[in-house]
């Protein structure tokens, strides 16, 4: 339960006591908050005293009389603005003229209360102020968390980009100093590995650009009526050469064209990521089954492989940014760790989701659901992350 501290500043003792009494047992229940908000009322009889109290310990809400013996309420308001105090001010004014109210809100007051007011009027104003204050603080908290997430994202990104660069530099230094003896085959392998790492880095940068465009909502999207089957056929042809090298067959099952309203590029990204993973993490001689169905308003894409699979624990973290399952079986497979995170974010944009079921050494089945006619708003993605 939260307690908000109110400082009431008025030269009339009766007014101060009245406010304190009215708010003594007052509780506010807010829709976004678990539990209730209570109020603790403190008093000051002049603007000077109010500023002293604020300096000592800043209240949450200031109930400030406009007409005070020394400095006026508006002067107090100015000083609070100068000192950038985190306090919400409600002006109390005897002559409820529009002029005073405008002048006060211009100088940073949140609301005003006209004298004389009933306890009910006071409570209504305080309820509104408390709601505003709490929503504002939650928004600030969220912004902080977003910054934190962004910071973590960038530090992991720096790490993931430095790793291949370090590996390439290491090989170049070995080549430069001929540190590995006289066998040229050893150096050929180093060149090969350096090129593979450079390729991995390029892929990561491309994925990162995709992700940034999706999350910023700045990617230009062209929603058209398209056939998911057609996009899948193209995607399969893209990865067929890689699959054939390892004797992996790719099958497509779709009874109809599976139409939906979507941006072609985004559906391509989803299918390319799923099919390329199903080939990469497969065993030689294995198979990939792509199945497309549409029930009412939902398009379902499932991609099943006969590959290395993963444990339940690994599957649970698979859709996060930069998550790569590291073990002996995946050590020579390149990946940015961003592909599935992108797939899930896109699926969310289409009002759907992405999931996986898997068994180690048997294979995995990835399922992506998409709404056939969603608004597909770029700003409705579920992740609070915005790199």
């Amino acid at each position, binding site marked *: 339960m939260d307690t908000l501290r109110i400082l009431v500043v008025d030269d009339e003792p009766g007014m101060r006591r009245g406010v304190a009494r009215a708010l003594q047992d007052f509780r506010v229940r807010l829709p976004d908050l678990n539990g209730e908000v209570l109020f603790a009322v403190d008093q000051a009889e002049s603007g000077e005293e109010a500023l002293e109290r604020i300096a000592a310990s800043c209240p949450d809400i200031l109930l400030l009389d406009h007409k005070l013996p020394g400095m006026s309420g508006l002067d107090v308001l100015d000083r609070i603005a100068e000192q950038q105090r985190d306090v919400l001010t409600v002006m109390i004014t005897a002559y409820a003229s529009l002029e005073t109210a405008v002048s006060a809100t211009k100088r940073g007051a949140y609301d005003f209360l006209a004298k004389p007011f009933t306890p009910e009027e006071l409570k209504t104003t305080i309820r509104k102020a408390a709601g505003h204050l709490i929503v504002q603080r939650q928004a600030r908290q969220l912004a902080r968390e977003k910054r934190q997430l962004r910071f*973590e994202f*960038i*530090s992991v990104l*720096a*790490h993931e980009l*430095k*790793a291949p*660069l*370090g*590996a390439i*530099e*290491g*090989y170049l*230094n*070995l080549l430069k100093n001929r*540190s*590995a003896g006289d066998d040229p085959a050893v150096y050929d392998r180093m060149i090969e*590995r350096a090129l593979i*790492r450079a390729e991995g880095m390029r892929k990561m940068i491309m994925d990162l650009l995709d992700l940034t465009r999706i999350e910023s909502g700045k990617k230009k999207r062209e929603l058209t009526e398209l056939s998911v089957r057609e996009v899948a056929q193209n995607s399969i042809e893209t990865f067929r050469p890689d699959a054939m090298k390892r004797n992996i067959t790719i099958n497509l099952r779709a009874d109809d064209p599976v139409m939906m309203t979507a941006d072609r590029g985004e559906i391509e990204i989803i299918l390319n990521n799923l099919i390329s993973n199903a080939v990469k993490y497969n065993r030689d001689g294995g198979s990939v089954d792509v199945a497309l169905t549409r029930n009412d308003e939902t398009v379902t894409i499932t991609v099943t492989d006969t590959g290395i699979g993963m444990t339940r624990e690994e599957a649970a973290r698979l859709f996060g940014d930069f998550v790569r399952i*590291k*073990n*002996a079986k995946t*050590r*020579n497979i390149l990946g940015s760790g961003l592909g599935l995170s992108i797939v899930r974010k896109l699926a969310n944009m289409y009002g759907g989701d992405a999931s996986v079921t898997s068994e180690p050494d048997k294979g995995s089945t990835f399922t992506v659901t998409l709404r056939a006619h969603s608004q597909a708003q770029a700003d409705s993605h579920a992740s609070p992350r915005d790199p």
Partner: protein
Amino acid sequence: MAKKILAVDDDPDYLAQLRIELEAAGYQVLAAESSAAAEEILRQQKPDLAICDLMMEHTDGGFTLCHHIKKLDPKIPVLLVTAVASETGMDFDAATSEERSWVKADAVLAKPVRFEQLRREIGRLLKD
């Protein structure tokens, strides 16, 4: 007899390079690609020194491994290699005894490690 160095890093390229450089410097290398592989080696052999990467399967896997090595034998010098410290703001070192009380390593090196620097650190820790 050549001194044995346990090298642990989940980047297979970096590990291969480490092996070449260390062997060229006259050390015998026990290479491990994961904390688990390193623990397996430690059950059978005792290295004269260990070089561990900080970020492996788990972001701080290197810390745990360093701790285990020191528990096994506090006299084995441990070098912790990391690429994360400066970016995450979690800068740490093993220069003072206070730091060494929780960072169970004798020295911390930033990645990418220059191999001359690495050889110097190894020489200092092995006192040879």
